[in-house]
């Protein structure tokens, strides 16, 4: 058991964005978080990575209580995250972006550069290493974000809609990348809208609605769960099935 979130609640004034959600992640899993907009999955996500301090419940990671730990501490312990809207360091080159992550484990510049270069090779960014991040498009940025997190050598990596806004072909490339990362032994949590991704990647999904987890289990079971269909997937998925068959 790598991460355990017990009965997390996040309240903004009277509004309960997340209301008693729990999640246990085992080493080597890929977990999907899905749900309609405003269901609270992003809030929950931010509670896990230390951007928000939950109003209720606690988060254990690798035996440490990280409920109130800062984002920095999360990173140190090995929790990496990407941002929904890519937050790359525009003025830095792609290599430097990744080096910032690499410094976490390699204080010396030389070592950091080497490990960053390894990550660039893995993520296929080597060719662009010396370009400024601002020269990249959305797909490039998302890829760079993943690379940056990889460079921090995390145990657990949380991807916040890392594939949103990509063309199908780009999505395929990205999915391969995620698979590679998973094979390299990193546990993954993916917040996603695109069903293909969830279905093709994850071992287990949590479905959020109105701040609560309304279903969890293997993707195939979940998508058949009437409550889920009712709440969220609805006809759109049935259509997909028909197409698939």
């Amino acid at each position: 058991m790598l991460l355990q979130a017990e009965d997390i609640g996040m309240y903004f004034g009277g509004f309960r964005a997340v209301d008693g959600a729990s999640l246990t992640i085992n080493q080597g899993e890929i977990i999907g978080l899905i749900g309609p907009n405003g269901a609270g999955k992003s809030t929950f996500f931010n509670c896990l990575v230390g951007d928000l301090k939950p109003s209720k419940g606690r988060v254990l990671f690798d035996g440490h209580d990280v409920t109130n730990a800062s984002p920095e501490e999360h990173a140190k312990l090995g929790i990496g995250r990407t941002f929904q809207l890519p937050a790359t360091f525009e003025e830095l080159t792609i290599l430097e972006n990744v080096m910032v992550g690499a410094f976490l484990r390699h204080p010396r510049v030389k070592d950091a550069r080497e490990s960053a270069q390894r990550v660039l090779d893995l993520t296929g960014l080597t060719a662009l290493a010396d370009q400024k991040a601002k020269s990249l498009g959305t797909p490039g940025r998302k890829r760079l974000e993943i690379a940056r997190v990889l460079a921090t050598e995390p145990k657990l990596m949380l991807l916040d809609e890392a594939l949103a806004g990509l063309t199908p072909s780009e999505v395929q490339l990205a999915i391969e990348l995620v698979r590679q990362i998973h094979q390299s032994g990193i546990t993954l949590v993916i917040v996603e809208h695109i069903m293909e991704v969830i279905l093709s990647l994850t071992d287990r999904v949590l479905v959020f609605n109105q701040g609560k987890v309304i279903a969890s289990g293997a993707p195939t079971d979940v998508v058949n769960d009437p409550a889920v269909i009712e709440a969220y997937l609805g006809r759109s998925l049935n259509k997909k099935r028909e197409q698939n068959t």
Partner: protein
Amino acid sequence: MMRRSGWIALALVLVLFPLSFDNPYYEQLGSLVLLAAISASAWNLIGGYAGQVSVGNAVFFGAGAYMPLLFYKLWEVSPLYGFPAGIAVSVAIAIVIGIPTFRLSGHYFSMATIAVAELIRIVVSNWDFVGASIGLTGPAVARDWTDLVFRSSIPYYYMFLTVLTVLLVMTYCIERSRFGYYLRALRSGERAARSLGVPVSRCKLYIFILSAVFTSLAGSLYAIKFGFADPASGFGILVSVNMVIVAALGGAGRLLGPLLGAVILIPLQSETNTLFGGGGTGFTYILYGGIIMLIARFEPGGLLELWERIRDRRASRRAVALKEALAASLPNSQAGR
């Protein structure tokens, strides 16, 4: 960013400048340029590299300027003894400002620095112990060399040049260290930097302290050069603003930006004053303000960035083809542009 030959040339110019002609006015001008370059480079650490726009660095300048003169006033000792005292005070103030405000983002830091600077200026200008609004004066004629009172500006020039060199070398090392990368990272995105394990608040505090130390040093040098400091020339808001302007003109967050800015602005100031001063229209200030607005409006990166862009544009023709080839390796990497 600069070839070795370039560095050597720059060094030679700086070292030989005062010797190249026997003219006290230009020697004075040269030393003023260096002094401005020191305080602007010190500001550059926090304002340029860390992107935290301090509009109150005058606090450190003032502390640095007052301490040596205060020591002289109290115990008639060489102003030199005041240098460390000024630095100590400045560091203390930096911590007091930094710890609470670096939690906040946006303009809070800028406003806090202004507020503290004004507060201290007002206190100083009403506190007889530090000469109140009349300020403090140092020895006018040297009792011995340790008073650092020289008739010619040349000794000051080389004193300043030494300090500037130390500061720039240190900055150069920071630029290339992990600390330097962290600063640039937090400048372009604090939240992202945090998520990668960058201790943002601590980095800001450290660089602010460093900035305070050298700003204070600049103040002490000012004090011995002019043998005088009063609330306006030490803690006045214009003192802070000048640092910002000089650095920004040359290029904030760049090693040589402040020096370039000083080389342009200081002679400009003094020569326009020489030319138009007699008329007494304050034309100097209008020109000054105009330059600042133009920089902010068209070239926020400063002249160095402008120069680099021009240079790159020349190079780009060749680069384009290559770039396309590279882009191919990452499908649609330009999509969404």
